[in-house]
């Protein structure tokens, strides 16, 4: 009969009390688990999202973040050629984002248009059909949402896009007839975003003036991860009128914007630990007080303080371990529920997740919970150890 075994069996004395305590610990553990996932989830999810296609650097107009504003940087293709010639750069690609319009039999529908350089793009994945060729000025890529908005457009269909609308004369300065080459998943789209893509020059004409060769951002992939930070520093020096950010810096900025959730996670996580300590501490204190006679007898027959203390601590550990195991299951379920709420933020990429389980942080949380639950038993264990044997036996006899 080990101390832990004895501790676990002691939990069976009062099933209802133990059951409620385990339920309370499980909820607290679930909350802690969720908050740990939340505190580490934002940067993990965002970082993974940005690095999906391996582009570690983003170049945008000065003072902006990717697609944060309508600002654009000029001379995009020349910039890309220069970057591609850099020995530390594996590849680079420019992207233009803008509103475009599709003509349907009834009306004009608003879409989001991406102008891309297909040979080095990092914002979509082809799901059906084919990708655009680099010089394909008549090809179009659709998201599933865009296809739905366009009445169920499929690969091979022709779509009429219009751009630069003039409300006064009710006409478009630019009209294009494009053939759907492929169905794609746009990696940074929010849920249900109707997006289309064409080669950069086509989208430039549809969205803006063709002069100036504008782009919303340029993606850069360094030859090795170790080259990223030095390359960022060099690009900043070479292009002081542009905003150059590594993925690490972008993640840090995103985390700053979402700092409220990180702080909330820390506060609620701490509260969960406090609740766990209070629950276990209260339960064991009352239990020890009820069993003082038993404890005094054990001490009288020669059971040492250390054994008595370890039995009380073992009860606390047993409660924590079992409650935490239940809490993991509950926490994973509530994380999905909470994530579904937060990921409904308008404009948030569909692939983004707030609650991300990471082995290292979950292990840390488990250790913290276990230590906390164990420490919660210290006061009642101390009570048990210092119980005066004779006085207690006298009180029991009356």
């Amino acid at each position, binding site marked *: 009969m080990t101390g832990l075994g004895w501790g676990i069996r002691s939990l069976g004395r*009062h099933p*209802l*009390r133990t059951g*409620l*305590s385990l*339920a*309370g610990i499980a*909820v*607290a553990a*679930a*909350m802690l688990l969720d908050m740990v996932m939340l505190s580490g989830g934002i940067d993990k999810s965002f970082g993974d999202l940005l690095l999906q296609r391996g582009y570690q650097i983003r170049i945008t*107009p*000065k*003072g*902006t973040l990717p697609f*944060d*504003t*309508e*600002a654009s940087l*000029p001379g995009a293709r020349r910039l890309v050629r220069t970057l591609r010639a850099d020995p530390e750069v594996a590849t680079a690609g420019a992207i233009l984002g803008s509103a475009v*319009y599709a003509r349907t039999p009834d009306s*004009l529908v608003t879409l989001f248009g991406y102008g891309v350089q297909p040979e080095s793009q990092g914002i979509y994945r082809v799901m059906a059909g084919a990708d655009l060729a680099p010089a394909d000025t008549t090809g179009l890529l659709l998201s599933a949402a865009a296809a739905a908005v366009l009445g169920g457009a499929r690969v091979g269909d022709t779509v009429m896009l219009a751009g630069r*609308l*003039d*409300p006064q004369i*009710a*006409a*478009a300065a630019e009209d294009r007839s494009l053939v759907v080459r492929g169905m794609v998943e746009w990696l940074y789209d929010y849920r249900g975003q109707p997006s289309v893509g064409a080669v950069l020059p086509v989208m430039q004409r549809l969205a803006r003036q063709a002069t100036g060769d504008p782009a919303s951002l340029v993606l850069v992939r360094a030859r090795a991860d170790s080259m990223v930070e030095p390359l960022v520093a060099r690009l900043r020096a070479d292009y*002081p*009128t542009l905003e150059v950010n590594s993925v690490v810096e972008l993640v840090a900025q995103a985390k*700053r*914007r*979402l*700092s*409220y959730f990180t702080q*909330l996670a820390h506060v*609620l996580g701490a509260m969960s630990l406090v*609740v766990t300590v*209070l*629950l276990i501490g*209260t*339960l064991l204190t*009352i239990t020890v*007080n*009820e069993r003082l006679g038993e404890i005094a007898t054990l001490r009288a027959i020669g059971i040492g303080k250390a054994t008595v203390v370890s039995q009380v601590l073992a009860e606390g550990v047993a409660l924590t371990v079992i409650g935490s195991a239940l809490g993991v299951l509950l926490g994973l379920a*509530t994380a999905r*529920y*909470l994530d579904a*709420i*937060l990921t*409904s*933020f*308008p404009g948030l990429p569909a692939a983004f997740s707030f609650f991300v389980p990471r082995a290292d942080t979950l292990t840390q949380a488990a250790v913290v919970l276990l230590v906390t639950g164990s420490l919660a038993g210290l006061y009642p264990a101390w009570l048990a150890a210092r119980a005066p044997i004779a006085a207690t036996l006298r009180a029991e006899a009356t």
Partner: protein
Amino acid sequence: MRALLCAVLLCAFVSRPGRAQVVDLALERGTAGRLGLSVGDTVRLGTAPDSMLRLGVVRAIYQPRPDPAEIARRALQARFHLPDLAELLGAPDRVDRFGLALVAGVSPDSAAAELNRSAFGFRAYPSAQIASESSQTFQVVSRFHRAIAMITIVASAVFLLCIMLLKVEERRLDAAVMRFVGVRRRTIFYALLLEAAVLAVAGSLLGIVIALAAGAITNAYYQRFFDTQLVFSVITPRIVALGVGLSLVLGLAAGAIAAARLVRTRPMVLWGRA
């Protein structure tokens, strides 16, 4: 216009005034603070870092209405006369939106529908719809808070039940003695129930004091952190009533369950002699 404006770079360096006209601008308070500018300062304006050709003079510093959707962005903001900004951006006849005030009696929904029937390249929305859609971010945060609150209430309920059970069971010897001397079960039950109610109310009042303190700390901290006048935590009478009411109901329920178990147990068993 506002979106583009965020990309306008403001330079605090005063240069020789060019021949171009000097424009007036008003700076948002936080922007002025971060750039170290005050009323009367001259700035250079442009749409690209290498074309800062226009001069502007800060005529006013304003405090915008707090917007929950914007506080985390910390965007630099300024206001111009519309013609000045349009000219600066090289789009003299372009705006992002119009605001329409309708004559009395005209429904915004019908007016918007009428406009949209003949619209080309724009859409009309009632202001209420815009407000609703632009507050979606805040609604998501509210839903998240409500979900956390529900989880917390469940945890608190379990905790309360457990503590009440323990507290009532601690009184087992007292209950046994009362039964020995002839006190009725019902009397003991109601005595324990009253004790549970007092505990629940006292606990919830203490909780309200803690919540008020925590709310004050939260507001002070985030107002400083985000440099805003937004109120983040509000304890309303409705919330107080909900907290006290829920605590009372749960406390009474827990106390009733525990008391019922206790009075159903034989006195000798409570005494520990059977």
